[in-house]
Structures are given as structure tokens and as C-alpha cells.
């Protein structure tokens, strides 16, 4: 739930020396920048962070005015908070300048999973990912080193729902194309959906592979002290709408798996019921770097270190790959033809 800046800053002050505290993933607690003392974050045993909530389309959830000091990005429009820091901030999504703004209305965050991996691990994972790229420019690792790492709590929904799907699809039987019609009952459990236009599906599917609800903690500003975080600005209805395209891809895949025939041109209608949701924050390390003037980012999961990102290609290496593969295909063809095979 949202906490006013004054309360949040008060809670983040060290009770021993009055210094600023921040969340240390390796300790799993707040540590003081000044005296180094470690303080666990209190947890209310009455709150179960894994609880989800029923969505009633007839009773839309209402946002409330922002209660945190919001930094708005002049470049991409991202709005984030930086609890416990007073330095000039950059946007964690695009590295553009972020300035204090009034912010849009927001929804309370229900839970989050705290960072488990420290900053050095974020760098290590980004370097390893870049080093493993094929057809990358030779100087890409150097470009990454000049980048900037930021720890971000990114807003997500989790959705549970049941789907009753009616579908049609075309399949080939002998020389003829036929149409298959069918019904399918599906259930989605803890489907992760980005709750911000700045979180691309690639970030979700690239780094947040294994969502474990048992790791959720009730929201407390202490967990995001020292990191950036984006508030939830999307209603549940908007979140469901934004996730429709991805859900359609998954439903088509389930239809394909459920049928013996190899279907193409799949069309479907679905009735969605039993929608339950959570508003959560998930931790990611983002490295922003530029290569020949173009910005890229590499994102590493703050829990398991799974990493994915954007990268440039080396034109010369790509032509090299193309020439090698072409030569192999042509070579096999020449041998085939020379041997007089059919």
C-alpha cells in the first residue's frame, strides 16, 4: 500500500545513528549507510502477501492521488519513485533525465518480491549475456562497461482466470483442407502481465521465468529503499486489455496442443470468468548502454539472474554467417546433383 514520503523517509532512517538506510539483498534487511547496522524489515503476520483478489468488472477499482514523490521521465514518460535517495535521478527504463513531478493517480501495491541478487551480480549477468551473443560487434563488451546499472521494482499484475474457448482451425487431410471446430476449457494461474507500458513482454518473458508466489512479501517501503520503483497506474480492466494479445498467443498455442491435427488459421472466441488478480512489484537489474549512438538495455532478474536484452549485430559477422550457411546449402546441393540423386 502507498506510504507518504514523510512516513517512508522516517521509516528509512537508522534508529541507531539517524543515517539513511537502504535494502541490502544479500542481508535481506535494511542496512545503514552511515553506521552499517542491519535491521530486519518488520512483517505483519496478519497480512498474507500471496492473497489475490476477485475482479468485478461491474465495480471498477478506483485509483487514489499519488502519495509518493514521483520522478517523471522527460524522454519516455515513465514515472518512478526513488525512496531513500536524494541524488539526481535518471529514468530506469530509458536512462533519460527524470524530474520531480506531481504524478498520475495510482493504485496501491499489494505485495512485492524483494531483490535477492546484489548489484555486482546484476553486472556479472549482463556481462555474461553480452559475451554469449553470436554475431555481436567485437567492441560490444566495452560499450556495456560504459553503461549504467539501475535496480528497479517493476509493476506487474498476476491474473488467474478460467476460459471457455470456442475455436475453428484449418488442417490438411490428404490433398484437402478441412475445418475443425471445437471447445476447450483452460485455466491460467498466476499469469504475469506488465502493469506499465514501459515493461515490455520481452522483459517479462526474458527474465521473469519462474514466478513463485511464496516469495511475495507485503508491501513495505523498506524493500525499495535504494532502488527505483514504478507505481501501479493501470486499472485491472486496462491491465486485462493490455494483456489480451499475449493471452491470445497462449490460447492459440493451447488449442494447437489440444488437437491431433496441425491447425493453421486458428480463430477463437473465449468467455473469461473467475478473474483474480494481484498488484505486485518484481525486481530487475537494468543496464543501459549505447552503441554507436543507439540506446540498448540488458535486463537481469533480481531473483535468479536470468538475463535477456537488446543488442546490436555486426554487419560483417552476419554476412559471414550468411555466406557460410549459403555455402553449406549450395555445397550439399552440388554434391546431390553431381551424384544424380532424385
Amino acid at each position, binding site marked *: 500500500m502507498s506510504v507518504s514520503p514523510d512516513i517512508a523517509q522516517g521509516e528509512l532512517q537508522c534508529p541507531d545513528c539517524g543515517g539513511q538506510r537502504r535494502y541490502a539483498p544479500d542481508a535481506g534487511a535494511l542496512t545503514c549507510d552511515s553506521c552499517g547496522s542491519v535491521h530486519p524489515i518488520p512483517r505483519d503476520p496478519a497480512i498474507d502477501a500471496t492473497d489475490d483478489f476477485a475482479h468485478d468488472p461491474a465495480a471498477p477499482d478506483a485509483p487514489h492521488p499519488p502519495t509518493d514523490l514521483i520522478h517523471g521521465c522527460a524522454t519516455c514518460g515513465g514515472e518512478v519513485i526513488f525512496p531513500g535517495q536524494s541524488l539526481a535521478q535518471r529514468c530506469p527504463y530509458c536512462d533519460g533525465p527524470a524530474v520531480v513531478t506531481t504524478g498520475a493517480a495510482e493504485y496501491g501495491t499489494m505485495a512485492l518480491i524483494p531483490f535477492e541478487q546484489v548489484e555486482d551480480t546484476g553486472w556479472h549477468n549482463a556481462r555474461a549475456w553480452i559475451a554469449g551473443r553470436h554475431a555481436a560487434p567485437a567492441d560490444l563488451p566495452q560499450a556495456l562497461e560504459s553503461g549504467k546499472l539501475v535496480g528497479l521494482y517493476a509493476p506487474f499484475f498476476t491474473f488467474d482466470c478460467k476460459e471457455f474457448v470456442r475455436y475453428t482451425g484449418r488442417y490438411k487431410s490428404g490433398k484437402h483442407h478441412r475445418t475443425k471446430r471445437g471447445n476447450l476449457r483452460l485455466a491460467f494461474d498466476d499469469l504475469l502481465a506488465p502493469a506499465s507500458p514501459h515493461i515490455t513482454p520481452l522483459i517479462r518473458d526474458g527474465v521473469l521465468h519462474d514466478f513463485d508466489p511464496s516469495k511475495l512479501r507485503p508491501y513495505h517501503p523498506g524493500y525499495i529503499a535504494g532502488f527505483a520503483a514504478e507505481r501501479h497506474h493501470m486499472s485491472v480492466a486496462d491491465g486485462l486489455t493490455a494483456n489480451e494479445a499475449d493471452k491470445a498467443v497462449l490460447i492459440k498455442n493451447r488449442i494447437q496442443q489440444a488437437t491431433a491435427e496441425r491447425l493453421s488459421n486458428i480463430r477463437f472466441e473465449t468467455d473469461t470468468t473467475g478473474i483474480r488478480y494481484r498488484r505486485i512489484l518484481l525486481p530487475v537489474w537494468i543496464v543501459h548502454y549505447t552503441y554507436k549512438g543507439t540506446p540498448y538495455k540488458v535486463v537481469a532478474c533480481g531473483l535468479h539472474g536470468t538475463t535477456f536484452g537488446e543488442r546490436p549485430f555486426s554487419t560483417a559477422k552476419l554476412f559471414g554467417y550468411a555466406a557460410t550457411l549459403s*555455402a553449406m546449402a549450395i555445397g550439399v546441393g552440388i554434391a546431390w546433383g553431381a*551424384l544424380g540423386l532424385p
Partner: protein
Amino acid sequence: MTPLADLLLPALAALALLAGGTLVGYGASKKLITMGEARHGLKQGSASQLRALAGWFWVLLWLAVLWFGGTIIGNWGATGDLEGAINRSELRLWLLIELIGAAAD
């Protein structure tokens, strides 16, 4: 034609095919690498992975066309008869079209 000329023309045709294949294959190679990264790096069965793996057909088509061109050149080089090599490739072409059509469905 001399035996050298018999081999020179197919060799030049192979080089031309290689040059064309390399030019067209720039995008296909990029797609192959992107697909490999998506296959190993993205969540199995996720929407992003399914989208990223969707363009494999064009890579297959590129390689199949090069292979088919190579078979004609190989047969031409071995027999010295281009027209005959093209005629003999007809059955192969129909088989290839059937296979690609089945893969595309």
C-alpha cells in the same frame, strides 16, 4: 566446350548463387540468431518466445532455394548439360514444394 570451360561456367554460377544467397541470407541469419536466443533465453511457451520463433519458415525457404540451385549446378557440372540438369530437377522441385508446403501448414 573444353573440359575446363565445362567446369568454369557451373563454378561461376555457384559463385553467383553464393553471392545472392549471402545477400538474401543477411536477414535470415539475423532471424536464425534471434530465434536461437529466443529458444534458449525466453520462457518456454511464453508469448514472446512463440512470436520470436514464428519466422522460421523464411529461413527454411532460403536454405531450400540455395540447396535446389546447388543440385542443378552440381548436375550441370557432372554432365555438362544445363538443359538436361534443369529437366531432371523438375521432380526434385515438386518434392521440395510439397515438403515446404507441408512445413508451412
